[in-house]
């Protein structure tokens, strides 16, 4: 059957046997997806391509186009579900972009940018599957697999080698290599195989290739996977009479001050900014406490000890809009790398075993803050209104959202200012 379907109000043709996804991409209409690939039979597992077809939500990659179908795809409802699916894939695996070789070339990451995913919102899973570095040219980091089956299909259908399969069930799933040893080196895969190039994330990656291109020149740095415009969450009202300067407070919890440094990279624009804002508590002016009526609080860093919690609660109590700035505040970031190390080991490493310590002992002074068992993102401790991603976020991103707020607009990050690394 051939005919026409209507997607987001646009009528497009389809050919006999085509799915909604195929018809849409044929007509240049982008439906977000991760596990679909035009060269292979549809898998239907990632569910990002879920559309409302004749009123019912179904995967568009496995649904046949039928004449007269009415399809909704680029709606806020569906996009927010897609955003949630991306968040789920991020927390399920170890997708810590700032330390990932594949960052900038990753389809999942680019999709998340375009879907306006600024924070993870769900707790991170820690899995710890085995890494396979046996192959001379390729490396497998199993904790990044999103089970899209693209390598499975590519190896079987394009390369004729049938090298990959997926094992386990539920949360215990894992990518497996179909060799007796279970190792990639014995599989006969080469860097030129379709299967070695199809992985949308940093699970199957090439050795000696990571970080070879500078930020700005990687595949998805400026060119998104697709062009749908997604709305950001809206902020609380500032209730501000015209002309009043906004009070901005900032602080760094468990962070490296890199976000603050990046903020200062707005350079001479800071002069322009101070015409509209005044700084309250901030390392920039060394004021140590928040005044009670701040408009915006910018928090860098994760929550690692009880002092961080007090500071954070003080900010929440005193700032109308609280913004989590950078990877550490948003997901724990670099400090969270300690999360699977026992607290005693941490303390001993710092106070007992470290080089050049005079009086090696764990301090027991009651005045000192306690360190938390894990470093947490700030939204697990207080309500956060907006997330500014990046490690650090670029100066232009600070500029963009602050000027947006100053001018009374809802802040909106364009694609090229969304970055996780």
């Amino acid at each position, binding site marked *: 059957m051939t005919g026409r379907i209507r997607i987001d109000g646009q009528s497009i043709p389809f050919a006999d046997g085509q799915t909604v996804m195929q018809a849409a991409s044929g007509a240049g209409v982008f439906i977000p997806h991760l596990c679909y690939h035009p060269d292979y039979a549809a898998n239907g597992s*990632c569910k990002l391509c879920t559309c409302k077809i004749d009123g019912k939500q179904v995967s568009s990659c496995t649904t046949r186009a039928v004449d007269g179908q009415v399809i909704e795809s680029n709606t806020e409802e569906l996009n927010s579900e897609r955003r949630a699916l991306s968040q789920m894939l991020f927390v399920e695996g170890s997708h810590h972009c700032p330390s990932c070789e594949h960052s900038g070339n990753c389809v999942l990451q680019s999709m998340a940018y375009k879907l306006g995913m600024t924070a993870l919102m*769900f707790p991170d899973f820690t899995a710890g599957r085995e890494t396979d570095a046996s192959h001379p040219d390729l490396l497998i980091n199993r904790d990044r697999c999103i089970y899209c089956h693209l390598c499975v299909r590519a190896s079987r259908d394009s390369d004729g080698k049938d090298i990959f399969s997926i094992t386990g069930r539920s949360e215990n799933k894992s990518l497996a290599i179909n060799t007796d040893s279970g190792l990639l080196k014995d599989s006969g895969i080469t860097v030129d195989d379709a299967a070695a190039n199809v992985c949308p994330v940093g699970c199957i990656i090439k050795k000696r290739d990571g970080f070879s291109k500078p930020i700005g020149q990687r595949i998805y740095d400026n060119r998104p996977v697709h062009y749908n415009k997604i709305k950001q969450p809206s902020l609380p009202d500032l209730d501000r009479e015209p002309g009043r300067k906004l009070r901005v407070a900032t602080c760094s919890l468990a962070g490296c001050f890199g976000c603050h440094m990046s903020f200062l990279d707005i350079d001479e624009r800071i002069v322009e900014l101070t015409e509209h804002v005044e700084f309250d508590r901030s390392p920039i002016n060394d004021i140590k406490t928040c005044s009670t009526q701040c408009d915006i609080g910018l928090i860098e860093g994760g929550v690692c000890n009880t002092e961080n919690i007090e500071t954070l609660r003080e900010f929440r109590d005193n700032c109308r809009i609280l913004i989590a700035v950078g990877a550490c505040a948003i997901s724990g970031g670099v400090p969270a790398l300690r999360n699977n190390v026992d607290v005693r080991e941490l303390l001993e490493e710092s106070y007992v075993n470290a080089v050049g310590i005079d009086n090696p002992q764990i301090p027991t002074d009651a005045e000192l803050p306690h360190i938390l068992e894990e470093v947490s993102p700030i939204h697990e401790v207080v309500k956060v209104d907006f997330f500014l991603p990046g490690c650090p976020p670029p100066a232009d991103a600070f500029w963009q959202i602050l000027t947006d707020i100053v001018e009374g607009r809802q802040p909106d990050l364009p694609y090229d200012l969304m970055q996780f690394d």
Partner: protein
Amino acid sequence: MVAVADSLVHDQLAKYRRDPAFVLQMLRHLQLEQNIITSGDIHVLSESLNLPRAKINGLIDFYSFLHRRPRGRYDVYFSDSITDHMLGSREQANLLCELLGVELGQPSANGAVTVSLTSCTGLCERGPGVLVNGTAIDRMDDARTREMASLIEANTPLEDWPLEWFVINDALRKKGPLLRYEPTRGKALERAIAIGPEGVLKDLETSGLRGCGGAGFPTWRKWQICRSSNRRQRYVVCNADEGEPGTFKDRALLHGYADTLLEGMTACAITVGASKGFIYLRHEYEFLRERLQHRIQRHRDTNLLGRNILGHHGINFDVEIFMGAGSYVCGEESALIESLEGKRGIPRVRPPFPVTHGYKGKPTVVNNVETFCYAAGILEHGPDFLAHAGDQPGWKLLSICGDCKSPGIYEIPLGTPIRDVLEACGAHGTQAVQVGGPGGTLVSSAEFDRHISYADLNTAGSFIIFDESRDMLDVAVNFTHFFAHESCGFCTPCRVGTKLMVQMADKVADGHGARLDIEQMQRLNKLMTQASHCGLGQRAAVPILTTYEKFTDSFERRMEDVEYKPAFDVEAAIERSRQIVSEEALSR
């Protein structure tokens, strides 16, 4: 020793004619015989069946009862279903562990025993249920547990354990047309052959029979679609996976009504033109297998199965039992077919449905045990078989368990209100009923006028009663864990969503939940309901949220902070630091 094990694999390969579709059967047998599937076994199977090793590993890791690490020589699983909990399964499991000095889920140092938990074993009305080396034992109590510990310690072979432990009776409490029906051997088949396929379909349609496995699809339609396909080879599959917690009516039918079932399947085969059938029997019902196999043989011996059935030339049909290996989602018909084909039980993309593209891509009727049994009754007695005084034709076998005086099987006419069911089984002080299993509907006492029917409370049979002493949040948490454990992991919303739901449900149950968590769960539920690939993921978040809606108190009682604030447990987060600091201070 090695030689013995090696010959076991080769025996299995020979038994199943080296057909890779039966690899699951071979693996299951090896597991039951050796308590492990060894690397050597996998190697032999991989070579002989021309299957990559990783695919065999993939199967073993998918099914709960298959293992690549050694289990104890006595492999004990306590049912972790809510009804078993209510009857003390956790206490018994812990007691057994204590007596044997083992940890839950870990084999003992000497390799003698492993004690672990498993999803519902289907002994709900006579729990706590337990499986030992694949065989079911019911009604575990302190005395049984203590005796079991001694038997295991004395290394007593299972054959010498008290015989009465292995006798699983069925409590048939209220009989309707099906439970009263005693088939005259071959009569249903004779009539099916006499009235011909069109006549059979007509009778089924008139009777109003719909699928009893949950979805309620009209049975005559399913048979008709299969029959009218233009493919020559067709299959009939009986879904005896009965994995829904709280359901055990198929167990009773497979046990006491096997002849009826086989006639129903055969009538279906004659109608749709199939010559081969399978009974997909869940692993937990191993204790029913031998008897069922005998019945199949008797049907063959009396020409009710096999070639030229009842002397009718060209009417051929035979049935084979296929054992599951521990996976609830394999009850979903397309996952079941994947499993039958020797694969991981992952639901297929539908459409096409099994009835046009089923086993090995051929048209396949998949029906529930009960559906086939009713079909046999209708064919023997005519389309009025399901009639009763009420206005909705049809009957339903309910598996009633939980807090009531007389748990067991009740055959009730469709349209019966919950209130009447509760009265019939002697339930008092009932707080709520879970109808249709964890994925079904939680009915609170305010709604006991609702009735069992396709239009209102649809159920495959599960009917779990909770009296006022039960904490409904605990029930919901148990169901949430069940779904996470059983998710096949194919699609994102269910694989990740069920795990997140567990985290949040546990958080609330532990007293650290906040309004934010509830909102997060509601958002997740919407996504899981709308985007999951199969019924499991679509229903997995429902129990916890329905409980929140209908039993808000049981939630808020445990939410330390009901305000709109994230609940961060500072005390817990610094407990370790506090402990270290005080240890240090003391040591100085």
